[in-house]
């Protein structure tokens, strides 16, 4: 019983230690506010920005771009990944292209794409897509190729067509890899989003942090970072984990270590 509670509380331990260290540093060293703000200053500033400030609009703008760009990246990455995973010649054709474009970071695209799309959401969405697509693509190809052939043969000898085999075998079989791709894709999507918003947008959490940097407001920078991390954690827990619990965990495809 006690054992169980310890495990449940464990995820909070790093946060508590960080807060204590933060507080202790301030009590002993008293750094200037432009270098490191106090926890209270961060909370006060974020509360100010949240109530009647720009924060709600920034969060909404950033999340809309992240979800839009990621959705686009997931759909196109899965589609291309299935085509390549199911056809050896197409995979051979696409792989060098993917390696080539994957090596070119979003920041490199930024000046070019500003010229094409202007400043705003389309630019941010393009840069997120550019990050998420490759991760989803490569995970999907791997997932499709690792589905045991015997499962496909089994469905074919039940009379299943190629489409039925893809629908009832390949798609669920590749799902653990696709979901793992979505998890890392969303993380890298956040990174691309903030980079895009630093220069390529007038709203969003990236812009908020950038304006904090311009005015030497470390409280805004730290507050913005904490918020990004918290939103990412919330999305993982309430968006991705429920999908996993209903699919790959329910089917016994990934070991959770729970209830064993």
């Amino acid at each position, binding site marked *: 019983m006690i054992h169980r509670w310890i495990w449940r509380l464990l995820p909070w331990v790093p946060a508590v230690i960080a807060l204590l260290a933060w507080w202790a540093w301030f009590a002993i060293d008293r750094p200037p506010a432009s270098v490191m703000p106090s926890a209270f200053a961060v909370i006060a500033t974020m509360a100010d920005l949240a109530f009647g400030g720009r924060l709600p609009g920034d969060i909404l703008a950033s999340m809309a771009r992240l979800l839009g760009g990621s959705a686009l990246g997931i759909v196109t990455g899965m589609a291309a990944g299935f085509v390549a995973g199911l056809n050896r010649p197409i995979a051979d054709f696409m792989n060098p292209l993917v390696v080539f474009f994957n090596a070119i970071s979003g920041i490199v695209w930024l000046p070019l794409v500003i010229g094409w799309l202007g400043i705003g959401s389309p630019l941010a969405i393009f840069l997120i897509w550019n990050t998420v697509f490759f991760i989803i693509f490569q995970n999907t190809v791997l997932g499709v190729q690792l589905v045991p052939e*015997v*499962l496909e*043969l089994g469905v074919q*000898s*039940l*009379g299943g067509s190629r489409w039925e085999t893809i629908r009832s075998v390949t798609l669920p079989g590749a799902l653990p890899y696709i979901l793992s791709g979505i998890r890392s894709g969303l993380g890298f999507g956040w990174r691309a989003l903030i980079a895009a918003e630093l220069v390529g947008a007038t709203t969003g959490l990236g812009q908020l942090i950038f304006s904090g940097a311009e005015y030497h407001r470390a409280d805004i920078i730290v507050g913005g970072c904490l918020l990004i991390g918290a939103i990412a954690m919330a999305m993982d827990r309430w968006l991705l984990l429920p999908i996993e619990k209903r699919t790959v965990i329910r*089917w016994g495809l990934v070991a959770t270590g729970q209830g064993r």
Partner: protein
Amino acid sequence: MADKIEVSGFRHFFRTEIGSVQATGTIDLSIKAGEFVTLVGPSGCGKTTLLKAIAGFLTPSEGNILCDGIPVRGPGRERGVVFQELAILPWRTVRRNIGHGLEIARVPKAEREATVARLIGLMGLGGFEDRYPHELSGGMRQRVAVARTWAADPEVILMDEPFAAVDAMTRLTLQEELGRLCAATRKTVFFITHSVDEAVFLADRVLVMTRRPGTIKAELEIPRSASGGRDWDSFTSDPLMQKIAGDVMHLVHAERV
């Protein structure tokens, strides 16, 4: 009775990086409708290659395979397969795995459920309908695999060492259950094994293969009682069955690698 499966002049080679490897010698065989034929041979003799060719998973290098007089050109629902490894879908419950073939054939829901319920009863899977395969024992999973193939109602059932990965005690039960299932449904079955007892216990006719590249070296008819019943108690106490099993063991033993 007409021949359900006819294999003539079959020979297969695998292409590898170091050249071509002969998997089987020339094989001719025919299986009558409703017959249970077992094929026993040493490992690597090419028996799985032969089964895969009949299933339509590979194209023979030489020879012809006919099912009901029609050349085999790929897998089809008239030839069901039970594999040695776990081939049921981990993301479908027992019920939905067994009903999958009927779903594909667009059988109406009520009829589908009746068939699934009958097979769940026959295979002793009652109470596990809504479980996923990872929640079942190895023996249970293989029962689901057998039931899934039977539910799709194929003309011919091909079984590739289906009980090899199951523990010895469960295997005896599964063999008896398969015997009952066959007596109840009169399917044409082609069953591959490396166990002599299993081959003689289940078969109407036993084929013995040589070592690689395998050919069929002997063929034995197994006399069945009128009821067609198969159980291990009467099998082990029947001197005639024991004599046949001894003869087959002799034939197989000579081929050990």
